[in-house]
């Protein structure tokens, strides 16, 4: 089973990278770009757990290490 975890800065946290990428995209002519948030993608390969167990475990992994909830939100999906 693979957990695909996406970690992004919380909406209220200023994201200097996102702002710079937004400016870059606009400079390239992508004038429709309104906002960019730059985050992190983590793939976790898991062995021997049911989807339900895995979901609980991955959620705990996110809370304890993969995301810093002071500044980041996370979401993940499981692929069997």
């Amino acid at each position, binding site marked *: 089973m693979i957990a695909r975890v996406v970690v992004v*800065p919380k909406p209220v946290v200023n994201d*200097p*990278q996102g702002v710079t990428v937004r400016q870059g995209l606009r400079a390239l002519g992508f004038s429709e770009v309104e906002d960019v948030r730059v985050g992190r993608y983590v793939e976790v390969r898991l062995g021997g757990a049911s989807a339900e167990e895995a979901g609980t475990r991955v959620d705990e992994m996110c809370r304890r290490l*993969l995301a*810093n909830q*002071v500044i980041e939100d996370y979401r993940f999906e499981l692929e069997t």
Partner: protein
Amino acid sequence: MKFGVVVFPGTWSDRDCGHVVTHVVGADLVYLWHRDRDLRGADCVILPGGFSYGDYLRPGAIARFSPVMEAVAEHAARGGLVWGICNGFQVLCEAGLLPGALIRNACLEFRCEWVHLRCERADTPFTRCLQPGQVVRVPIAHEEGNYVADPDTLDELERHGQVVLRYCDAEGRVTDAANPNGSARGIAGIRNADGNVLGMMPHPERCAEADLGGTDGLLMFRSLVEAATPVGRRHG
């Protein structure tokens, strides 16, 4: 006063801190490896600057789970002194020993330069040799020193006098231009509610001797040494 300087894989300021402790202020020193579970009698633990564990995932995120950090957390809970400098500040925030977090500098650059700091609290063990409002000159060297916390946490820090150092100009004015990384409210250093844990991004260990361009950092090391000295034995 015995200082314990923690060394993680990737720490780079440990010898600078150790040099100041032993050769400049003449205090006792022990280096603590990240696998150590015993602080070996250290009164004040220094978490120095660097790139612990390569700053993988987030600065301080992995260091926080080192065996030594369990001992550091217990030491802090007992009221022991803990001083996080640069990467050490990031570790303390990740470990939850200090509130908030340090994100990428607003300018997206690694900033390595001298800055001015205003001492907001001179009644801490870390700053007792400074005057309230005193402006000191100390170098920074970081890419992730942009202090963030939610507004309630920031208000609470202010209300309880936990902001110890702020970036300012040479006259002590806290302005956007004097803020090298975009930190909320110009925050350069904070302490915990109990006052025994301090985190700061600037590097006092790099300005403790005139040969290095400044001696203001020495005031903080002296403060800690004096903090451990009974009043009757203190000089001047």
